[in-house]
């Protein structure tokens, strides 16, 4: 990726390479420690800390006990809830955001000038900042401890709408005219022309929606405290007690909740950053 024209002189390059590797490994250290603690027997987790030794970072015995214990407890349901909420948000959110973005980018209707800025300004309010007053509304509607309440905030995502609108604006209008001549309606144009051409933007928008839900903590804590609807991010905070002796399952839970988004983001990282940078910087 780098476009540096002149190579470094060799020693400087080697130093830079070593320094980068060192820093990256420091950043990974907490995650590595989570992984080995999740996989080693409970008694081993704190055993090699004083004094430090090679066994601090390299487990000699491996066990799946903590995962088994986790799987038998209520955390299985929590991670299922997290997945369900994220998956439904992804599907519904992509539909709601893309069809709104289509209307804003493609359809010429009176009032378009006003609708867009209203949406921009509203979505500039970060969701977490108004989560507490929103709870009052959801209580009034009697929607506490429901999947609806968990999923709803993730569906209308301003960033996803702006991103898709931006992308749709870049699709040549000739295609639109041709489709109209062929007698395609607005929904047909959206479904058969715009969506298939927008896969990269849809992936980015999907990541934004997914990450929002997978990370959510405050809203699920407020709106769905019941065990049946508890999501992983809330469940792990409640199962941990830093002075408890049973740390293994907590690390196992942390590993489960981290690996899923890490895999997704590693695969699509470039897509995600490029899109957020464009919308955030130029929107």
């Amino acid at each position: 990726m780098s476009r540096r024209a002149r190579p470094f002189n060799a020693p400087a390059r080697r130093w830079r390479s070593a320094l980068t590797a060192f820093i990256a490994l420091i950043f990974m250290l907490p995650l590595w420690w989570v992984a080995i603690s999740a996989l080693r027997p409970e008694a081993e987790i704190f055993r090699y800390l004083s004094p430090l030794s090679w066994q601090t970072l390299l487990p000699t015995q491996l066990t799946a006990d903590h995962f088994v214990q986790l799987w038998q407890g209520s955390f299985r349901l929590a991670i299922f809830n997290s997945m369900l909420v994220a998956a439904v948000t992804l599907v519904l959110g992509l539909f709601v955001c893309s069809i709104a973005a289509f209307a804003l980018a493609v359809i010429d209707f009176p009032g378009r000038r006003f609708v867009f800025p209203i949406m921009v300004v509203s979505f500039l309010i970060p969701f977490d900042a108004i989560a507490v007053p929103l709870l009052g509304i959801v209580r009034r509607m009697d929607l506490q401890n429901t999947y609806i309440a968990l999923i709803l905030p993730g569906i209308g995502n301003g960033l996803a709408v702006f991103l898709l609108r931006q992308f749709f604006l870049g699709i040549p209008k000739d295609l639109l005219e041709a489709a109209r001549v062929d007698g395609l309606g607005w929904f047909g144009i959206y479904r058969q022309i715009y969506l298939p051409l927008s896969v990269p933007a849809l992936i980015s928008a999907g990541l934004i929606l997914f990450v929002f839900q997978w990370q959510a903590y405050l809203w699920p804590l407020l709106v769905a405290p019941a065990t049946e609807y508890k999501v992983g991010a809330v469940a792990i905070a409640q199962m941990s007690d830093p002075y408890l002796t049973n740390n293994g399952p907590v690390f196992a839970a942390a590993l489960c909740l981290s690996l899923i988004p890490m895999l997704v983001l590693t695969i699509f990282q470039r897509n995600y950053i490029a899109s957020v940078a464009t919308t955030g910087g130029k929107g």
Partner: protein
Amino acid sequence: MTRRRNLAVALVFLGPALAAVVLLRMWPAGLAIHDSLLAPRATTYSLENYRYLFADPLFLKSLRVTLTYVVIVNPLQVAAALALALLVNASFPLVGLWRTLIFLPVAIPQSVSAVVWAVGYRPDGPLNAVLVSLGIGQQPFLTSPDQALASLILMVSWIGVGYWMTFLLAGLQDIPQSLLEAARVDGATAWQRFRYVTLPLMRRPLTFVLVANTVANFLVFAPVKILTQGGPRGSTNLIMNEIYTRAFSAGDPSSAAAATVILVTTLLLIVTIQFWLLRSSAESQS
């Protein structure tokens, strides 16, 4: 005629998103303003809740802690992110892997990171083990009013720095190599090239990162709730935790609403300034 017919279609297409905007943004924001203007048991609007808040030492302390935190953490994270971006903006073996590793902590839910760091900061935890082996001695970290906020800052920086780095790296890679080359030919030192070529061209990504990071830092909640509950002695009681405590532990929703209005207004102001800064920089560049 067609435009009129288009309006109906557009309203149907926009319907769900507009409903989301109204239900999830406008209504709660309006409700917060309404509640903030009604003192407990009052029937007429007044600024009583705001007067009460600004006379409450707990709230003032929380404001002070939040501002201290934001003023320290933002420059720190942006500088660290820029340094990292400059470091990894080169080609050497495995650089892509190192970038990904530095970026990854942001993928982890904040509550998970908080739980992990809580164990890390334990008296018998790994961080103290390292300090002891270096001969520095055990530190209290989260249990000390002097160290808790700094411990929090270290943790959120581990989460965020790599994320912001990737935006700045994208900005660095947009700088035309020919400009840096020309400066080099003219005899500019590395520092001069950075100061007079790189930095001015990084204004846009830097502004974006600074503002987005400020907003994110005002909203930090999970780490506080999980690690310290605002303590010890209010030293980590950031504004989101203060609002949460007021609304749910102290049973004072009116002043929580007033605090919410203050927070949202502050954030909107910051974002508006961003738009203004980016617009003026775009004009001066074109």
